[in-house]
């Protein structure tokens, strides 16, 4: 069996699993798995760029995904009436002042000779800058948050088409990644891991707390859909030509409209995935990709050949994070709402890592395959676990404490299973299902 045949078979098996879900459970569930699988595949490509190509250990994926979601709110929602005049400009001014403080401190650190004077002036600039920033920022933010807090209380967005938010999500994530990379890259691998873990938590804390930006934990609902590809169920149900097609397929209008909406998303996501996969493949095969792998395999040798390792690392860190940001924007569009408290590191950082490792780090197709497979398992382990627990406890009397505890706990089998899969793959097939060539 050649490699191409084996890999195709692997993809067919995962596709078959999703189809099986359609036949045995419901097509709705199957397409849900497909859609999140597509998004996960894009995240996996991003992580694979960083880890598989360059050996960068980024465990802050969640933060970049969340920033992508934030971009959707900032780009596609309508602006809140009067928010900008009430305090929006004040907030922007405060942020500029804050940035100026940091830049000033950095300049002093670079320009002045080392000594007590320099330390004192840096500390002085930072403290003074902080209080000026707070003095401008606090009243402005409070003014914005006071506007109609039950439904708004934030600045709102630019009211642009939601599809524009996807590249914007990538840009926002890339900007954050540049800032982070500038400070944290060049640290040792496990230090970088801790640093990115912290960054992700800070980004989430920021999104939960800064109500003026995206309403914090009050969430943003009703994000517009990428019409005309994805319509609204109610409109479809009133459309005679759609009803005729649904009848021809033998589906009732309600099911047909939900399926149609979801398939519209699938189509868009598939296009993005294919474009990104093509780009990643081209990058991997190009001289640039070879250089990246050379740096990954032996930094010292690559540096001796005149490659600027730090710059290349920064470059690929930004690129990979941008891909994660795009995926995050797509996910928020699919959900139709931004829920900062829903971002959990186990789900959005470590699960993506399981996908990449299981699929095959360093191989883009491997990452995509791993994403679909692991996402399928993540969804299906719960019903399987429940079924298993029912089977195990069949001998126990009804109403026994152990039986009900075991059945209630079946939902938590997920994390356990994911860990087990990761460890088994690492032990017996450390290069993953589709290894790097």
């Amino acid at each position, binding site marked *: 069996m050649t490699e191409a045949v084996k890999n195709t078979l692997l993809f067919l098996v995962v596709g078959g699993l999703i189809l099986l879900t359609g036949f045995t459970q419901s097509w709705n569930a199957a397409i849900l798995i497909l859609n999140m699988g597509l998004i996960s595949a894009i995240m996996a490509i991003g992580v694979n760029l960083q880890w598989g190509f360059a*050996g960068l*250990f980024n465990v802050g994926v969640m933060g970049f995904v969340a920033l992508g979601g934030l971009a959707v709110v900032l780009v596609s929602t309508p602006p809140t009436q009067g928010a900008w005049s009430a305090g929006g400009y004040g907030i922007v001014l405060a942020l500029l002042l804050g940035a100026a403080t940091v830049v000033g401190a950095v300049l002093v650190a670079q320009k002045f000779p080392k000594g007590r004077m320099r330390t004192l002036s840096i500390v002085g600039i930072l403290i003074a800058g*902080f209080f000026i920033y707070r003095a401008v920022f*606090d009243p402005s933010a409070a003014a914005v948050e006071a506007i109609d807090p039950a439904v708004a209380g934030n600045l709102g967005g630019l009211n642009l088409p939601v599809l524009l938010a996807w590249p914007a999500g990538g840009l926002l994530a890339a900007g954050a990644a540049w800032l982070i990379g500038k*400070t*944290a890259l060049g*640290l*040792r*691998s*496990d*230090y970088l*891991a*801790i*640093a990115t*873990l*912290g*960054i992700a*938590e*800070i980004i989430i*804390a*920021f999104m*939960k*707390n800064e109500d003026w930006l995206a309403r914090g934990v009050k969430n943003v609902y009703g994000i517009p859909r990428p019409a005309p590809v994805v319509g609204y169920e109610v409109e479809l149900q009133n459309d005679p030509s759609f009803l005729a097609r649904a009848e021809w397929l033998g589906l009732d209008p309600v099911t047909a409209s939900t399926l149609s909406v979801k398939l519209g998303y699938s189509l868009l996501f598939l296009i993005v995935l294919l474009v990104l996969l093509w780009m990643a493949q081209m990058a991997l095969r190009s001289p640039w990709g070879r250089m990246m792998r050379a740096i990954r395999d032996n930094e010292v040798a690559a540096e001796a050949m005149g490659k600027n390792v730090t710059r290349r690392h920064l470059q690929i860190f930004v690129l990979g994070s941008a891909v994660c940001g795009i995926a995050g924007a797509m996910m928020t569009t699919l959900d139709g709402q931004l829920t900062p408290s829903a971002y959990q*590191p*186990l789900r959005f950082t*470590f699960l993506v*890592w*399981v996908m990449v*490792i299981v699929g095959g780090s360093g191989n883009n197709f491997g990452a995509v395959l791993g994403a679909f497979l692991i996402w399928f398992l993540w969804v299906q382990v719960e019903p399987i676990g429940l079924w298993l627990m029912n089977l195990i406890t069949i001998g126990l009397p009804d109403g026994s404490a152990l039986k009900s505890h075991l059945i*209630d*706990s079946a939902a*938590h*089998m*997920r*994390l*356990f*299973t*994911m*860990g*087990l899969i*990761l*460890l088994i793959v*690492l*032990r017996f097939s*450390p290069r993953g299902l589709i290894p790097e060539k």
Partner: protein
Amino acid sequence: MDLLNALVALANFVIVPAVAYGSQLALGALGVTLIYGILRFSNFAHGDTMAFGAMIAVLVTWGLQAAGVSFGPLPTALLALPFAILGCIVLVLVTDRLVYRFYREQKAKPVILVIVSMGVMFIMNGLVRFIIGPDDQRFSDGARFLISARDFKELTGLREGLAIKTSQGITVVVAIVAVALLFWFLNKTRTGKSMRAYSDNEDLALLSGINPERVVMITWILVAALATTAGVLYGLDKSFKPFVYFQLLLPIFASAIVGGLGSPLGAIAGGFIIAFSEVTITYAWKKVLTYLAPENLEPSGLVQLLSTDYKFAVSFVILLIVLLFKPTGLFKGKSV
């Protein structure tokens, strides 16, 4: 101006909580730093090891409470602690035998071990949630306060009260005992000395006949004991919730790195540095400043530098500053 009341308010809201929290972080960071020194990788599963140990303590405490056993004014959980430590030791030794040993024999790169520890983290996290569920569990009992705010006010006649919770007192005492035992073990016993030798120079230690598997085993036992103690103390002080232990990973790592990975003394110092910075920066200083400021000049706002939700940011910024200016940490840790 009222210096005394200001001091009491400061002690009540900043110093006492920060000392307790710092002790918990220090115990956690000691575990991380020991693993780093001997096994040479950053253990992402440490938070969940703490959760597992604490979970056993919760279960045993419930059992003891049901059996009518109590520890007087002290929490029953202290009686459960030895059992919890034993359970946790079994868990980490089994994990080491089944998972980590394979990679040690292969001399795998540290980053591979970090990824492996991610897998272990998932499994332990799943195990804890499977056994006890993801919710808050309360298991503290006994007297709630060593001294309550009202008693303190009556005793001293001051306007401000100073409350010290039993859990806070116990945290500090237990932490001191644990640290003293650990340092005695590392510095005075033969096994402890062989551990330090192995940490400093693996090849030389092997040459002089130190059995590496024994060193690793002792390390895991110490780590399990420290992690369980930290987990139980944190659970007594706040409450037991599996997810919170996972989140503790960041401040714990920050403590260990700030102090210098591989240096036990550094881990303790780091723990207190992180705890004090977190508490002082997220505390609303209005009360203290009102006592200190001259009349009519009282602050109008809360004078809170950052909201408490940003406490991660604090440990993180300290971590970054230390890494940028002194990459091996304050106490000259390792850098592999």
